[in-house]
C-alpha cells in the first residue's frame, strides 16, 4: 500500500482511458446542454434556455410521459406476472418447467430486431391498430422474461418446506404466499423490477416497430431528431442519464452501506 508500483500507475491510466471512452461523450453532451448558443463545439456561456425549451416542447414532453407511464405499467405487470410464474415454475412438472424456461429465454437471446418484427407481424395479423396499447403489450412481453430470470433462481434456492411450514401453522395458501414467499423473494423481485423498468424506459428497437398513430417514447424522439443538431436533446439527455446514473449508484451502493452499518451495530452489541 505504501508505494504505487509503476505497473499500478499504468493500470490506473489504462482504466482511466477506457472509462473516458465510456463516459466522455456523455459528459460532453451534458456539458453543452448548458450552452447559451446552439453550438455543440463552442461553449459561449452558461444558460438554462435548452431546459426551458425542453419543458415547453409538447412533442418531447408527450414522449417523456409515454416513456415513464409505459415503463411503470410494464414494470408492474411484468413483475407480477414474472413472480407468480417463477413460483409456479418451481412446483410444476419438469417437462413444463423446461419447456417454459426455454421459451422464456428466446426473447432474451434473440436479437432485439427479430423480437421487434415478431411483435409487429403479430399485431398486424390480428389487425390491432398500432399505438400506446401495442407498445405496452410488447414492453410487458419483453420485460417479463427478465423478471423471471431474476426471480426464479431465488425461488429455486428456497427450502421447499418453508411454504409447508406456513400452511402447517395455519396459513392459507394465499397467506403463505404473501407472508412467507414474497418477503423471502423480495430482493429478486426488486432486482427484476429494476431491470424491467430500465429495459422498458431505454427501449428503442421494439417500440419503434410496434408503435403508430404518432405515439413516441423518448428513444423514438431522439432517433427522429438526430438529423439536426438540437441542444434540447442534450438537455433531455442530461436529465435522463443523471436519473439513471443516480438510481444505479443508489441501488448498488446503498445495500452495501446498509450491510456495513448493520455489521457495525452488531459489533457494538456484542462488545
Amino acid at each position, binding site marked *: 500500500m505504501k508505494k504505487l508500483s509503476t505497473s*499500478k500507475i499504468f*493500470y490506473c491510466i*489504462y*482504466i482511466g482511458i*477506457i472509462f473516458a*471512452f*465510456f463516459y466522455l*461523450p*456523455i459528459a*460532453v*453532451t451534458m456539458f*453543452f446542454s448548458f450552452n447559451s448558443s446552439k453550438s*455543440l*463545439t*463552442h461553449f459561449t456561456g452558461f444558460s438554462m434556455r435548452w431546459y426551458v425549451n425542453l419543458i415547453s416542447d409538447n412533442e418531447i414532453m408527450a414522449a417523456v410521459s409515454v416513456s415513464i407511464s409505459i415503463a411503470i405499467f410494464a414494470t408492474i405487470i411484468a413483475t407480477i*406476472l*414474472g413472480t407468480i*410464474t417463477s*413460483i*409456479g415454475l*418451481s*412446483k*410444476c412438472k419438469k417437462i413444463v418447467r423446461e419447456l417454459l424456461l426455454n*421459451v*422464456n429465454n428466446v426473447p432474451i*437471446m*434473440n*436479437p*432485439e*430486431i*427479430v*423480437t421487434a*418484427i*415478431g*411483435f409487429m*407481424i*403479430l399485431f398486424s*395479423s390480428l389487425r390491432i391498430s398500432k399505438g400506446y396499447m401495442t407498445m405496452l*403489450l410488447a414492453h410487458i*412481453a419483453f420485460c*417479463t422474461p427478465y423478471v423471471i430470470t431474476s426471480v426464479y433462481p431465488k425461488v429455486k434456492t428456497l427450502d421447499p418446506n418453508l*411454504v409447508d411450514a406456513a400452511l402447517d401453522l395455519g396459513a392459507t*395458501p394465499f397467506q*403463505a*404466499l404473501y407472508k412467507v414467499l414474497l418477503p423471502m423473494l423480495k430482493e429478486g423481485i426488486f432486482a427484476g423490477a429494476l431491470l424491467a423498468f*430500465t429495459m422498458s*424506459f*431505454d427501449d428503442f*428497437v421494439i417500440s419503434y416497430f410496434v408503435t403508430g398513430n404518432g405515439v413516441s417514447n*423518448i*428513444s423514438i424522439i*431522439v*432517433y427522429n431528431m*438526430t438529423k439536426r*443538431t438540437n441542444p434540447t436533446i442534450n438537455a433531455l*439527455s442530461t436529465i435522463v*442519464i443523471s436519473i*439513471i*446514473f443516480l438510481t444505479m449508484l443508489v441501488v448498488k451502493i446503498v445495500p*452495501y452501506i446498509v450491510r456495513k452499518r448493520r455489521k457495525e451495530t452488531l459489533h457494538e452489541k456484542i462488545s
Partner: protein
Amino acid sequence: MKHFKHMTGPYILWSAAFIVIPFLLIILYAFTDGGLSLMDASFSLDSFQEIIDPLYVTVFSRSFQVGLITTALCFLLGYPMAYMITKFDEKVQPILILFTTIPMWINLLLRTYAWISILSDNGIFNMLLGKLGLAPVSIMYTGISVNIGLVCNFLPFMILPIYTSLSKMDPALLEAAYDLGANKLQAFTRVVFKYSLPGVLNGVILTFLMAISAFVIPKLLGGGQYTLLGNLIENQFISVGNWNFGSAISFILAVVILFTISFLKRIDPDDED
C-alpha cells in the same frame, strides 16, 4: 406446495401468444410468397434464394466483417481492462465493475447521440484536430464511426465475463506456476489465459452476435450508406414492405444466434442451468 403449480398457467398462455406465435409467424412469412396477406400464401423458398443476390451478399459479408472487427477490438481493449481490474484491492474491484456496468443501463440512443456530436464533420473531434493544426477528417457516416459506436457499446459485454473468469482464479495457481519455474509471460499464457478462456469465449461470441445484429448504431452513425443485417431487415419491413424477405433474414439471424448461444450454454461450466 402443490397449491402453487397452477400459477404458471397465465404465463403459458402469455408466452404462447407473445413469444411462440410471433416466432411462428416469422417462419410462416419466411417460407411463403404471398406478400403481406397470408390468405393467398403458398410454400416457397424464393426469399432464401433472393439472399444470393450480390447486393444482399455484400450486406451479409459487411455485417460479418463489422462483427469481426468489433469483436477483435473489444477483445484487445477489454482483456487488459478485465485483467487490470483483478489486480486492484478487493474493495475497489466492485466499484470499477459498477462503472463498467453503468453504461449498459443508459439509453443506447442517448449514448449514440453523444457520439454524433463528437464525431460529426464540425464536431468536437475535428475542432480539436484543428486546434492542433491538423486537417479535419471525415469519420462520421463511415465504417470507423460505426465501429467506434459498436465497440463503446459492447465493450462491457466483453469485460464482464472475462473479469468473472479471472476473479475466480485462485492466486495460488500463479504462485505454483512461478514455483515450478515459469517466468511472467509463461505464467500468463499457460495459466492465467487458459483459466480465463471460458470468459473469453463467452465475451467473444456475445459481442460478435450482438454486433452482426446491431441496428441502431449503424443507422445513426453510418447514415444510410452503411447497411448491416439489422438495417436490411428494417428496410424490408418499414420501407420496402417485403415481409417475406425480411422474415427470411430474421429467421436466419435468429436460428444462428439461438443455436450458438445454446451451444455456448452447454459448454460453459459456470452456468448452472
